[in-house]
Each structure stands twice: as C-alpha cells, then as structure tokens.
C-alpha cells in the first residue's frame, strides 16, 4: 500500500530513511528507553538506518548525520530530539551539508512532548515510538521544492498625510525610495496642523510641522495625491497594484497664486471643517494658510457653479468641469497611516455637546487657541464672542467608559493640562477646573509638566465625573459632578466647557479588508506582535504607523512612522523576495472546479483558470484550509498532503508506516 501511494507522488526511488535519536544527555534517555525505540523504529520498512547518540545537536552528533547520509545512501532523515522550534535549523543545515534537501528532513519531538512530561518510562517509550513513526511516515512522502522568488517593486504607498504619513514618506524619500503619498483631504498636515502648541515642550505645532509639509511638496521622490482615496489593492508583498480615486480639485495648483479673489466673490458659505465648525468658509477656499499643495480648492458638494470665481481668477486656474480620475500605481510596500477621529460628542448626551454652543471638544479648543484660528488665538465663547473667565475641562469624555470606549485614549490627560496652561497664560485670573479619573502622564517630562500646571497655574483638579451639564437662566453652564476623593457632590459654573473626547480609528473596515489589515475589537489595526513586531500586520509588506494602531501622541507617532519606514526599507533593500515553497498545489486533472478552496482561502490566493483552481504562489501562506476542504483531493498542501496526514494518523496508531 505504501509503495502504491509513494509512486503516485512521483518519488522515483524507494525511501531510504535514517532515524537519529538523541539522548539529550539524560533529558530524553533518562525516561525514554532509546535502545528499545531504536529497535522498534528499525522495524519500519522504509527505515534503513537508526542511530542514537548522547547529543545529536553537538558537532560530533551532526557529523554522524552527515556521514550516515552519504554512507547509507539515505534519501530522507528524521531526527528525534527536542522541539523543532529549538533545533530545526541546526539539523536542516546538517542534512543539507550531507547532500539532502531540507524538505526531506523531519523532526520528531520526544523531549518537550514526551520525556519531560511523563514519568512512566514504559509509556513514554511507547509514545516516543508513535511520535517517531508519524515523522517517518510524513518524511517518506516529502518532496523537494525550490524556494519561491519574486521581484520587488521599489516604491512605497503611504496612505494618510498626517504627521505619521509625512514622517514615513520623508524617511523613505530621503533614503532614495520613490513614495506615493495619498491624502483624502485637500491638504496634508492631518490633525497636527489643527493644533496650537504641543505638550510638554509647548513647541508651536505649525512651526514644527509646516517645514516638513513643505519638504514633502518639493521632494523629488514623493508623488502627492490629495483629495484621493485608495479604492483597490491587489497583489502581495513586494508587488502590490493599487487604484487611487482622485477627486477633482478644480483649481490648478500650478496656476493658483493664492490671491483670494475667488474666495471673496464666492456666494456660498459653509462651516469650516478645519476650525471644526467654529468659523465659515466659502465653496472655493484655502484649507488653511500653510496648506500643501498651496492652492485653493473647490468644494464640489457645495459649489453652485455660479461661475463668479471663473471671472475674477487672474490666471484662469479654475476649471469647474474637472472630473475625478482613477490612477493605478505599482508599489512594493504599503504604509497605512490613516490616523484618528474624535469620538462623536453627541453620544455623550449628559454633557450637552451639540446642544449648547459653549460645550466644545478639545480640537475646537485647539482652534480657539491657535493664532490662525477663528478668534486669532483669543479664548472667546462661541455663543456670544465674550471672553471666557471660567473654564471647565472634562477628561475621559467617552474614554474608559463601558458605555462608550472601554480603553484609555492616552493623550487627553496631557493635552488637557496643556489647555489649562495656555488658558491661564492668556487669562491669568481665570478659573480652571478639570475633572479627571486618573492622571496618566507617562512620558519624558510629562509628569513634571502636569505638576507644573497643577502647582504654578493653580488649576483645580477634581477627581471624579460629571453627571450632567445644563445652562441656567443666567446663561452659565452648570456642571453637576462628584468628587470621588471627598465623596462630595460638586457644582461647577463655567463660561466654556471643553470635552476631552476619546480617540477612535479612522480606518474603515472596507479599506482594512482591501489592505488585509486585521482590526482589533475597537477597530484599531492589529499588529503582528505588540512588543516585537509593532508596525507589521499579518499580510507581508503592509505596515502601520500612528493612531491607526491605537491612541498615541505625536512623539510616539513619529517614532512609529520612522519604524514603519525602516521596515519598508528592509523589504525594499532586497531585489527579490524569497518565500517558503510549502504552499498549496493543484492537480488540474482532479480539480472539478467546485470553488470550495476559493471560498475557504483567507488570502484570496486561489482563482479559477479555465474552470480549474490555480494557486498564486506568492499569496499562499500554506495554512492548508483548502486541502482540508477539497472534496476530490485535488488541492494539496505541499509536504502536508491528505495522504501524508492519513499515513501519520495510521503510524501513530501503530498501523501502516
């Protein structure tokens, strides 16, 4: 029977298997009777040579294997020793030195899985024989394969033009790698461009960001697509083909001179998203003064096409009939840096966000503080424009709340302390109250910063939560809360309430699926390993940077962006990718085209060609889900075929080996 199966997989010669049993000092031999094992294993017809030795992994041990392969004309090897995760590579190399392919070698784990977990010598010996028999059965049918190679496209797509995307793009471009930077909005800069100052150094956000933005604009290695979205991604590590949908700007950036004539005549007024609705803008507008590309843009949704702007534009830069276009690009790696959004404040009904104009979110407060903001940096009430004297900050608005976001949004403690400081600098006699749950100030100079705000600036920190905010007859906002340290109910009156809204990921499930980026339970991108592989996802050649992976501040984001860029460079520094060849393979004569494998493949690696399944060898990761589900046995995982699995089962159970 075994002969019949072996001949079907075209192994021309009879298996001549050598089994090498390691004593591992007394680790194995102290429990397992290795002599008895050797005797029993030698009875398996395909086994022509058995040897046991005190330390197989030692240099003399390896030499024994190498010599035996040549002397005994072995064509397959089983080493029965420790777990393959420890010494697979050691023995695979020894087998290769002996002149055999590593794919004609298997390990049987008789230490971790046998001698270390059982006291009963007889039973442990018996189990070791079964485990080795299975390895012998498998290796007898293992075939030799060559590693799979593919050329790598030396270009990177960066999705998202915030500080993460900008950093990654510049790092790559400066290393000489061409970059495609795709940004959804009309300008790069992201959330950081909206900020006033940054904690804990109080660097002005614009001052440190805009030079980087300008560098992106003039860098010869960066191709920037704004108003653009990635709509399709196909391919695999080293070779991705992406489709980018570019919405029309309707203003030619090369011709626009920022004269603002168009803006002045435009009759359409809509809320300005950059100021988060605290000001208005026209339907033709400059997103913000330092926007990159430095050009006006037409808001196609609100433009009435009245044509007034066309008449006043001195350079004829405007084309209201410009259409969207689809651009195709080929890249070797993709960095996903899509950033975050604030948790919708409207969901926190008790705080009156969206009901009272003077209950605002933290990004709106950043705009109030910004010199280029709607109030030129003065903290004025949105409702009546009056100066603010009493201000209330509520931290963890939505975060660390089972009804909203169970996780900590990480940056709110710090930016709220910064908000308090900047407000007090502007209004020294102002009253600042902050409700907090805990102060989390883990970071270089963060704790010192918060201490300074608490002590020097006399900010009233109350540990507790606000249960309700309402406006009283005098127009004051009244917050009812509890101080959990004293256990007392507190009432705070304020002119302005700022909610430190939690952070939610911006990457939607649609794009995540196209990019094969797995999402965690909150919708943040799931890295391969939180500690050791923090910027990689399970799909090869795709990297993540910034808040797409979880809430983080600017310094962490920049660190991660540089890490992602470095990882992309590591991949692109090679000319070819080399991949393990143990993937699925189709027997076209057997395939009946039922498409079952297409359905179960998690990587989309199988397509139908002329009614038969075909495996894309670069996409296949070798999980074997297709092999287990094929009703006719046409698709087989290389060196883990159905026949091999049955033979292993039988060998374990003491049947045919």
């Amino acid at each position, binding site marked *: 029977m075994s002969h019949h199966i072996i001949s079907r997989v075209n192994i021309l010669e009879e298996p001549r298997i050598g089994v090498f049993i390691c004593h591992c000092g007394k680790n194995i031999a102290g429990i397992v009777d290795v002599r008895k094992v050797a005797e029993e294993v030698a009875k398996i017809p395909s086994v022509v040579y058995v040897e046991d030795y005190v330390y197989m992994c030692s240099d003399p041990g390896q030499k024994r294997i190498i010599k035996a392969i040549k002397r005994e004309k072995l064509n397959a090897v089983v080493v029965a020793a420790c777990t393959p995760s420890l010494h697979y590579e050691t023995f695979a190399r020894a087998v290769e030195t002996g002149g055999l392919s590593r794919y004609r070698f298997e390990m049987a784990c008789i230490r971790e899985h046998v001698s*270390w977990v059982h006291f009963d010598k007889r039973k442990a010996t018996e189990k070791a024989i079964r485990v080795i028999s299975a390895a012998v059965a498998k290796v007898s049918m293992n075939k030799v394969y060559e590693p799979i190679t593919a050329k790598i496209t030396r270009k990177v797509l960066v999705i998202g033009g915030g500080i993460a995307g900008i950093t990654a793009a510049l790092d790559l471009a400066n290393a000489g790698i061409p970059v495609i930077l795709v940004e959804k909005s009309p300008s790069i800069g992201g959330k950081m461009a909206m900020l006033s100052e940054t904690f804990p150094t109080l660097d002005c956000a614009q001052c440190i960001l805009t030079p980087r933005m300008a560098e992106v604009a003039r860098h010869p290695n960066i191709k920037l697509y704004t108003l653009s979205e990635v709509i399709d991604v196909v391919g695999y590590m080293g070779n991705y083909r992406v489709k980018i949908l570019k919405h029309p700007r309707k203003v030619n950036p090369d011709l626009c001179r920022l004269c603002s004539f168009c803006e002045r005549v435009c009759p359409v007024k809509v809320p300005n998203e950059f100021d988060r609705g605290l000001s208005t803008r026209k339907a033709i507008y400059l997103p913000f003064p330092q926007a990159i590309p430095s050009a006006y843009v037409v808001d196609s949704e609100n433009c009435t096409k009245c044509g007034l702007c066309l008449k006043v534009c001195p350079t004829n830069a405007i084309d209201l009939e410009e259409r969207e276009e689809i651009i195709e690009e080929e890249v070797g790696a993709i960095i996903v840096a899509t950033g975050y959004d604030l948790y919708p404040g409207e969901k926190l009904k008790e705080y009156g966000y969206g009901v009272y104009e003077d209950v605002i979110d933290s990004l709106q407060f950043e705009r109030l503080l910004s010199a280029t903001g709607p109030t030129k940096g003065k903290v004025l009430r949105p409702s009546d424009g009056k100066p603010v004297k009493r201000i209330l900050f509520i931290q963890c608005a939505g975060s660390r709340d089972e009804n909203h976001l169970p996780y900590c949004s990480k940056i709110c403690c710090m930016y709220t302390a910064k908000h308090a400081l900047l407000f007090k600098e502007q209004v020294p006699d102002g009253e600042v109250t902050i409700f907090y749950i805990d102060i989390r100030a883990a970071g270089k100079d963060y704790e010192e910063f918060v201490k300074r705000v608490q002590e020097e600036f006399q900010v009233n920190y109350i540990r507790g939560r606000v249960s309700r905010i309402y406006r009283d007859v005098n127009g004051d906002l009244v917050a009812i809360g509890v101080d959990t340290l004293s256990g007392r109910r507190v009432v705070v009156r304020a002119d302005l309430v700022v909610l430190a809204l939690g952070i939610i990921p911006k990457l939607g499930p649609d794009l995540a699926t196209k990019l094969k980026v797995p999402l965690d339970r909150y919708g943040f991108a799931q890295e391969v390993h939180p500690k050791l592989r923090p910027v990689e996802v399970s799909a090869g050649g795709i990297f993540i940077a910034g808040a797409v992976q979880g809430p983080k501040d600017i310094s962490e984001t920049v660190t991660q962006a540089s890490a992602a860029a470095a990882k992309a460079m590591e991949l692109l520094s090679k000319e070819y990718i080399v991949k393990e060849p143990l993937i699925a393979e189709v027997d076209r004569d057997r395939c009946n085209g039922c498409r079952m494998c297409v359905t179960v493949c998690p990587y989309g690696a199988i397509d139908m060609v002329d009614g038969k399944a075909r495996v894309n060898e670069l996409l296949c990761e070798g999980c074997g889900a297709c092999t287990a589900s094929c009703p006719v046995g046409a698709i087989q995982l290389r060196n883990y075929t159905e026949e091999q*699995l049955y033979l292993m*089962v039988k060998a374990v159970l*003491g049947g045919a080996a």
Partner: protein
Amino acid sequence: MMWEPLIIAFFCKWCAGSAADLAGVSRMQYPPNIIPIIVPCTGRISARAIVEAFLNGADGVLIGGCHTPNDCHYMAGNFKAFKRVYLLKKLLKQFGIEPERLRIEWISATESQKLVEVTREFVSQIRELGPLHGGENGEA
C-alpha cells in the same frame, strides 16, 4: 494487558503545539495517552483525517487550536475547524461513535496549564467511555 485509551491530538503549531512545548519546558505532567500530531493550522485538519483516526484505533481525538475570534495565524482556520467538528460530531453519532470522543479546545501558546487540564480531563472522560474498538489497541 489493561486497556489504555489512545488519543490523537491534532495541535496547531502556533498555539497548542507551542503550549505543549511550554508544558515540557515547565516539566508539567499529563497522561501519555495523548499522541500529538502537529499541524500548520486547525483549519488544515480534514474531516477524513479525524475519521481515519477513529477507524484506525483511536479512542478519542483532541484538537487544540488558537482562540477565537482573532488569534488564528491564518485569520479564521480555527472557525473552519470548529464548524467541521460541529458537523462531524453529528455524523459520528449516526455511526455509533460517541460525539464526546471528539473534542476541540482553544489553547494559546502560553496556556500550558490549560493544555494539561484539558488532556487530563479528556483522558479520564475517554476512560469512562471505554474502548472504541473493544480494547485490542492498547499496545503499540
């Protein structure tokens, strides 16, 4: 010779297989009746392979895979295994094999303690059920 249960354990190499390694390193003890076959993913275990095990003398089959929903190295192989086991249990019953002889457990690479508990429990459970093949398969 007293009958001893013989159990095939299909362990995913990423989780339960590594847990078995860890159990070894930690010198934990569990019944030697469990013979592991390491697979690349529980999604790789075909229904036929499980049936072959029962046909060829196994008294029980244990499958150790990665925790649902997100632990699977290949995204959803664990769900595929779970569905297959669910259906196969119904089928086994029709052929007079107690569905309890087939068991699937999620055991992460760090859960060696769980692996030990599950194997102990399963072996004693199979011991109670008695031999599937009249007890002639006790020896190698």
